């Protein structure tokens, strides 16, 4: 009897899994629009990509990335500069293709690595020309690309990786992993990344929701049932992220940009607030009873009916926390949107979300032993999570709030819980150690909250240093950097030329770009950064409108959207790396110094 019920429960779970499966069909559907439709062609930069990397002092590698259904002619891959005597290009042999006019040709249908050996000094830039066609019956004109090479500083440094490698952003790493094209590596890598993400505060809200489901709904659950429930929940979460991967593959648009719009942030914060109120016991979070009853009646036929609502709950929870994990997802979505590879996107994000769900599964598996019986203790924990969720709400929405308001909110978040912890109630003389410790913590929280309030009134710039303006004095507040606006590629070229031997920094900005505001607030306001930037000409491209000129500017630097920061050397050449995404002041300074800024304090 028990065994059959157990079996039925797993059957239901398998059906939920099968609900995820139509995604495979959806991917085929997507390809109908993107791959198989003869009218839809990749632009040349998506059909072929080329990267250059310095291996050692005399040796570089060129990597050609060929989109499926396209090929490059081996004969037409040439080095334009440096010329023949100082650099030798070696290509692997390609696949044979018979051309009616030119006879047998060698072509590359897949990613190809070419070696370049230098007999003279390593140049700063490699220029390479290539030409290819699509199997769909069209060709792309020859492309000439300039690829900067990071100079190897000294022979001693050849064994260590280039210093810039250490500065790689998370999104670049995940992008690289995807472009390696090895499936099991992608699955394992994204699973690991998901595990790491599970330990960020973003996943906190899921824990009480889940334990509420397990402990709340089914007070006398067996361990197996609790595990099954949490598995259903996790799979629901996976569904949402897999859909995000598919959407990224289909759309060619950076989803995380959409998630960073003020509307999405405010919606996310509001949902967190609503969740936290349920933690405080203002109301019980449940699906509307109409829907729940419908589900219940429908699912009664299958036994284990709660699985379905848990599955949906998981899907919705993932939506809720998505603004919070948007940044780490960006890299994966970026690459997926570039390749239009829907299946890859779905697999990568499915493994990512599965990794994120591991702690939840563990909680489920341990349900009988770890999670305590409901009681006053549980209520305290619930309230703690409620406060944490409010904190996440403030954090999510903080980029679009003025600093003073942020500080006020943080202050409220510190002071009110402190009062609840009896920070100002007198302790009875018979107080236990626990009570005394609690009061101590509560007092610290109260004092920090007051410091934040003072910070809000005195114009502090960061919640972490609320009293900075009082201690450092007024003169510490530096004026905002003044940028010269560039509106088009022509204006940019003029501005770079008029820099007259000065180095140039180009910052991409948009009103809806949260990270751009963070740059303004936390990075460009830093005295050390300002000192470093003083000798540079500062340009800013406002791509809020995202018109054709903006798109051309972004495309020139292979950027998909702000934030992006490009540097030019004194000769007006682009310097690597192009900064994509948000880097805090420390990392930003390191990059500034690594690209040849004068090493001063």
């Amino acid at each position, binding site marked *: 009897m028990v065994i059959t019920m157990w079996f039925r429960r797993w059957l239901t779970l398998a059906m939920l899994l099968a609900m995820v499966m139509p995604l495979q069909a959806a991917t085929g559907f997507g390809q109908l629009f993107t791959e198989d439709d003869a009218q839809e062609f990749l632009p040349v930069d998506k059909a072929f990509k080329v990267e250059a990397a310095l291996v050692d002092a005399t040796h570089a590698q060129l990597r050609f990335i060929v989109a499926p259904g396209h090929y490059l002619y081996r004969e037409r891959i040439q080095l334009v500069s440096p010329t023949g005597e100082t650099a030798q290009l070696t290509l692997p042999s390609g696949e044979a293709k018979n051309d009616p006019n*030119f006879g047998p040709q060698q072509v590359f249908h897949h990613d190809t690595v070419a070696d370049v050996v230098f007999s003279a000094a390593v140049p700063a830039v490699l220029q390479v020309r290539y030409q290819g066609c699509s199997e769909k019956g069209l060709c*792309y004109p020859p492309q000439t690309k300039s690829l900067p090479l990071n100079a190897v500083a000294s022979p001693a440094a050849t064994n260590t990786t280039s210093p810039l490698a250490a500065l790689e952003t998370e999104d670049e790493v995940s992008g690289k992993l995807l472009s390696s094209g090895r499936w099991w590596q992608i699955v394992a890598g994204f699973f690991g990344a998901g595990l790491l993400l599970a330990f960020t505060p973003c996943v906190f809200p899921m824990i009480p929701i889940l334990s509420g489901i397990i402990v709340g709904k089914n007070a006398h659950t067996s361990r197996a049932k609790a595990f099954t429930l949490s598995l259903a929940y996790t799979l629901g979460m996976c569904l949402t992220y897999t859909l995000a991967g598919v959407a990224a593959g289909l759309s060619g648009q950076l989803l995380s940009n959409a998630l960073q719009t003020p509307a999405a942030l405010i919606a996310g914060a509001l949902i967190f607030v609503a969740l936290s109120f349920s933690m405080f016991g203002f109301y019980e979070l449940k699906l509307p009873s109409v829907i729940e009853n419908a589900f219940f009646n429908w699912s009664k036929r299958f036994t284990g009916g709660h699985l379905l609502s848990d599955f949906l709950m998981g899907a919705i929870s993932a939506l809720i926390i998505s603004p919070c994990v948007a940044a780490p997802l960006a890299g994966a979505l970026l690459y997926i949107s570039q390749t239009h590879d829907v299946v890859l996107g779905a697999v990568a994000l499915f493994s990512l979300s599965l990794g994120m769900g591991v702690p939840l599964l563990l909680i489920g598996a341990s349900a009988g032993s770890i999670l305590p019986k409901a009681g006053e203790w549980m209520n305290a924990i619930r309230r703690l999570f409620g406060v944490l969720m409010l904190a996440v709400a403030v954090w999510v929405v903080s980029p679009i709030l003025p600093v003073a308001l942020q500080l006020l909110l943080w202050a409220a978040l510190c002071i009110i819980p402190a009062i609840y912890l009896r920070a100002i109630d007198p302790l009875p003389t018979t107080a236990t150690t626990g009570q005394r410790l609690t009061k101590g913590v509560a007092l610290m929280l109260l004092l920090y909250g007051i410091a934040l309030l003072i910070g809000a009134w005195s114009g502090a710039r960061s919640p972490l240093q609320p009293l900075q303006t009082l201690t450092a004095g007024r003169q510490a507040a530096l004026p905002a950097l003044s940028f010269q606006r560039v509106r088009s590629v022509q204006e940019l070229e003029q501005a770079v030329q008029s820099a007259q031997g000065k180095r140039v920094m180009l910052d991409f900005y948009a009103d809806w770009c949260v990270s751009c505001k963070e740059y303004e607030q936390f990075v460009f306001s830093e005295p050390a950064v300002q000192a470093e930037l003083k000798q540079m000409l500062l340009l800013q491209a406002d791509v809020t409108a995202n018109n054709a000129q903006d798109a051309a500017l972004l495309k020139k630097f292979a950027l998909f959207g702000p934030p992006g920061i490009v540097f030019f050397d004194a000769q007006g050449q682009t310097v690597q790396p192009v900064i994509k995404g948000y880097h805090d002041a420390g990392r930003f300074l390191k990059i500034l110094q690594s690209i040849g800024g004068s090493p001063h304090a």
Partner: protein
Amino acid sequence: MRKVASIVMTVLLMVVLGSGFRWLYLNRHQFLATEATLPDESHMNALWNATLSDQKGKTYPLAQFKGKPMIVNFWATWCEPCREEMPEISELASAHPEVAVLGLAVDEAAAVHEFVESTPVVYPLLIAENEGMPLAETLGNNKGVLPYTVIVSAQGEITHIFFGRVSRKMLSSALNL
């Protein structure tokens, strides 16, 4: 209390789903393979103002073709699908002398010369090694691909554009022949 919670949850669901659909709707052009937009008449001046020469050096001011229905075929000798479609275009050109047919080669004169020796066509092949791709882009080739074929009506309007290989049938039906 339970009722309040239901309402809150319903509203939340509606907000989340609603904003999702709104986003999908606003970005629908990204998901649907939209009809390629035809370039308007103002862009045609780039074509009419061009003067190109064929592989033997004879110059052709393109304005002389104004007033005729026209097929402008961008190609190159290194582009296999381009070479495949040229005999069909040539057949169409000899069957319909009232249609002006031009091949614009994004290529060197020498390569075109050599190609014509082995595969003659009845319509003029003009050398546009450098100006070819920018001109094609002005005339709607936003993908920068070859072959690219533009059909211009006698009124000087672009009526059809074709990315990739065309057939005689596609061209005839585009010109209502």
